[in-house]
């Protein structure tokens, strides 16, 4: 007997993808651009706390995902895109953000003002890098993060740049600010406790606070550079896992490992070297809005991105292998040292000159071979279609836009910014090439006055020469019966504009659509011969692209 949960899962598998429901492939509201997953959740959900060790070791030895590897994402619309939801909001790729908007990112204010008194209400002193939380003059709460004492700017720049990129792509992220603040301005809230590295609490006195921050480098005016991460809205209820669904969230109907935005995150994480993409760096919050409660999903903590490892430079092996990479371990064991782990070949930038940028390079970077901390169930399920989606988002940034984002990292030396940007673009190109060339790369389909136009993204971004030609065959698609009837003979052409067949459909035939299979013919990419199938629905005197089937 199949449980209702499983039924829901199987149905969900069919819903947004709109492939298989007998009788009707497309609904009247397709393609949907927003999935309203804010059904009222009046009860405050359970607060969960995950085990770090269980999370790390568990995924190394067991795949917690339920769907088959190679199966497609289930939360995409009929255009094979991700609708807006509490997980993801299409931003830069849909409506281009201005440079100012990209630089602002999620920030809704100027951040905590450096001339105000900040009141410390929580602290921890673990090793050499302390952390604490403050309330600014407006009463807003921030988590204060500090750079490694010996490598100023390393993690603060990484955190802020990554925040801007992930926000522009569409993920929900906290507001992160780089602030220069004079240590004398801090006040300690009476009763504040500080936690040492053993988890013991003791009163945080002014003297002790000064001891905590005494090794933090000071700028010429005596201030400290720090990152202020604003508390995210809502009540924190714990991280989300990259697999299954929350049992107490009615809106959470798609298994997380089968969400396109979490699968595609693998390629985006590879681009930004966000190796720490695991459950512990996510956060769900219960938001109560206009008397309606729902769960919002965030990515948190971008300190371990690019060349930063948060408390030090990124470890050289991470991002080239899982933290416990059993396959690599086996090879190493029997290799007697002659099987050299790939990361050992990497030539990093010169240290200490480029310590602030950290272990950040693009020459040895391979998007396919890139690894995060552990086999994330969503990441291991990334298909070529998921990668194509992610690659489009990655390539949506121009070099000028990326430069503007890198500037928000506020590196004190221009050569650091330049090097950072150079590597970011190198890796962008590699990720774009990997994701876009992995499938028939036709996209940006639109009906114009002259017909159906499309773009070969691989040619657009210069990943191939312009020798692609296209094999086109039209049909009439019966949405009620899920059948098609070919119109005329297939034709081959060089242009990326197709004339629409005339007189085929008349108004009133709601269930009849135009369908067109487009195969890309390129000597270097035989895999592009798999067709992109486009469905056009008649809207008055014109047509609307209503669906795209793309084969992996």
């Amino acid at each position, binding site marked *: 007997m199949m449980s*209702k949960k499983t039924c829901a899962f199987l149905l969900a598998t069919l819903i947004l993808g709109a492939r298989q429901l007998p009788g009707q492939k497309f609904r009247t509201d397709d393609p949907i651009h927003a999935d309203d*997953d804010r059904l009222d959740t009046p009860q405050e959900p359970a607060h969960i706390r995950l085990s770090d*060790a269980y999370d790390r070791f568990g995924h190394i030895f067991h795949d917690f995902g339920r769907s088959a590897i190679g199966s497609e994402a289930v939360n995409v619309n009929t255009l094979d895109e991700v609708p807006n939801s509490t997980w993801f909001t299409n931003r830069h790729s849909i409506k281009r953000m201005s440079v100012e908007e990209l630089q602002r990112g999620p920030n809704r204010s100027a951040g905590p003002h450096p001339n105000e008194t900040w009141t410390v209400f929580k602290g921890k002193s673990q090793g050499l890098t302390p952390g604490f939380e403050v309330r600014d003059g407006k009463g807003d709460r921030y988590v204060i993060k500090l750079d490694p004492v010996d490598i100023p700017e390393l993690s603060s720049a990484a955190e802020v740049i990554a925040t801007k990129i992930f926000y522009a792509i569409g993920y929900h992220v906290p507001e992160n600010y780089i602030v220069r603040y004079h240590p004398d301005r801090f006040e300690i809230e009476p009763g504040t406790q500080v936690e040492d590295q053993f988890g013991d609490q003791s009163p945080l006195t002014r003297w002790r606070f000064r001891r905590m921050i005494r090794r933090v480098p000071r700028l010429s005016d005596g201030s400290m550079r720090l990152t202020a991460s604003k508390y995210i809205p809502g009540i924190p209820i714990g991280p989300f896992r990259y697999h299954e669904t929350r049992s107490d969230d009615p809106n959470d109907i798609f298994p997380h490992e089968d969400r396109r935005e979490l699968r595609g995150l693998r390629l985006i994480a590879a681009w930004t070297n966000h190796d720490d993409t695991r459950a512990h760096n996510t956060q769900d919050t219960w938001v109560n809005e206009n008397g309606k409660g729902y769960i919002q999903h965030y990515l948190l903590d971008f300190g371990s991105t690019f060349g930063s490892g948060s408390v030090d430079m990124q470890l050289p092996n991470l991002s080239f292998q899982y933290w416990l990479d059993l396959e690599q*371990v086996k090879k*190493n064991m029997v290799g007697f040292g002659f099987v050299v782990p790939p990361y050992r*070949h990497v030539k990093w930038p010169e240290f200490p000159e480029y310590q602030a940028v950290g272990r950040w390079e693009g020459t040895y970077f391979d998007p396919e071979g890139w690894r995060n901390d552990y086999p994330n169930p969503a990441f291991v399920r990334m298909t070529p279609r998921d990668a194509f989606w992610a690659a489009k988002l990655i390539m949506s940034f121009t070099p000028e836009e990326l430069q503007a984002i890198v500037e928000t990292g506020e590196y004190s030396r221009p050569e650091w910014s330049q090097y950072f940007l150079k590597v970011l673009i190198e890796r962008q190109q590699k990720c774009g090439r990997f994701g876009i060339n992995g499938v028939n790369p036709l996209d940006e389909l639109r009906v114009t006055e002259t017909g159906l136009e499309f773009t070969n993204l691989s040619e657009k971004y210069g990943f191939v020469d312009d020798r692609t030609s296209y094999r086109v065959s039209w049909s009439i698609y019966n949405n009620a019966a*899920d059948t*098609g009837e*070919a119109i005329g003979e297939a034709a081959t052409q060089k242009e990326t504009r197709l004339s629409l067949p005339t007189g085929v459909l008349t108004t009133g035939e709601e269930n009849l659509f135009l369908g067109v299979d487009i195969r890309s013919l390129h000597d270097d990419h035989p895999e592009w011969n798999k067709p992109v199938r486009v469905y056009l629905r008649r809207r008055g005197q014109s047509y609307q692209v209503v669906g795209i089937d793309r084969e992996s």
Partner: protein
Amino acid sequence: MRQITSSLSPGIAVFIVSLVSSSAPSPAAQAQATADPGASAEQETGRKTRAETLQEMREEKSRELSPESVSRWEARIRGWEETQFPRNWLVKGWNGFRPVFGGMPSGSGFVLGAGYIHGLAAQYFQAQANARFSTRGYTMLDGEAVFPPPQVGRRVELKFRAQYRDLTSLRFYGLGNDSSVESQSFYQLEDTLFGGYAWLNPRGLLSFAAEGGFLRAETSSGSEQPSVGDEFPAVEIPGFDAPRTDYSVVGGWVEFDVRDKWEDPQVGLVARITGLRYDDTVVNAFDFTRVVADVKGYVPLGPKSRILALRLRTSHSTADIGDAVPFYLMETLGGAKSIRGFNEFRFQDTRNLLVNVEYRWEVWTFADFAFFFDAGKVFADEEDFDFKDMHTGYGFGIRGHAPGDVTLRFDFAHSTEGFKLHISGGPSF
């Protein structure tokens, strides 16, 4: 006519339709079913908008919600993490009181004890006191204070140490390079030490230290048989059965360190020369000077995943004219940190020479494998300071290590005296 087929097989489609039909129908679906009994569930589903269908799925799920939780195992492990088990248990203990493991001379057997530590999270100093007992019946009481604590960056390190040991059955095979394993005997060493050092620029490129202390030592027949006195004439073993002897110890060391890192280095070299002067203040028969040179080099063979680690160590203790170096203060060869194919304390004399070569290769971030070759000799005459007549051993090692140089080492070694397995903490060198 060309059929555009669905990518879903008909069987699965029917299966899913049946699932959809079997799930609880929405009020809208119930109304429709009443109005048109012949309409199938899938037709009904097909007429809905995408948004309506998704909404229905969510409403359906909302009727079967259950509190989100973690598995029992995950909750249990999480509990351990929150108590920082086992780190807190081992390092911090209960209000500073904690179990201690090891810390006695190699060959003591399994060592367990209890201690108190103060200042783990403090900025200025750290102090600890421990009592240890071993399965061979050894006892050790020790205490030390370090300024500043090890976890804080420093320019100078001051350490004071007090220690009492009752080592009831130390092995002794006789003096000289040709001693026989058949001559194994035992003795008891009871000693007390008060000392300390000041180390300038510790772990810097060039560092200097001065040390000094007071040592009281006494030997007697061991708790195991045969005793040293049974196997060897007492007159041939300087210091055996001698009256309790007090020593003042002064000295220091100079260290040159160009390793890439202190823990698990992969390239570089560290060389230390130590000089110590022992003055016997009671018997006036055991005044001597010791000079030790210890050089360790780490050479990556291509990438740093393959390391050739080399060590050359030599120790020379020279007694004043008319005096002797007591046997219990002679350095020894054999065991987990010297020639691993031999027992601990297997060879001893006033001088020794040790060579270790290890080919280490990376297996994991926290684990290495190694092949090793050890060679060494002991001698009394300075003229024997050469590479002739070396005892050799070789073997294979597995090392697990974590940040902070907490190493667990398994070395399987072979020599002319058979196979040895050493399980120990800390690096081989």
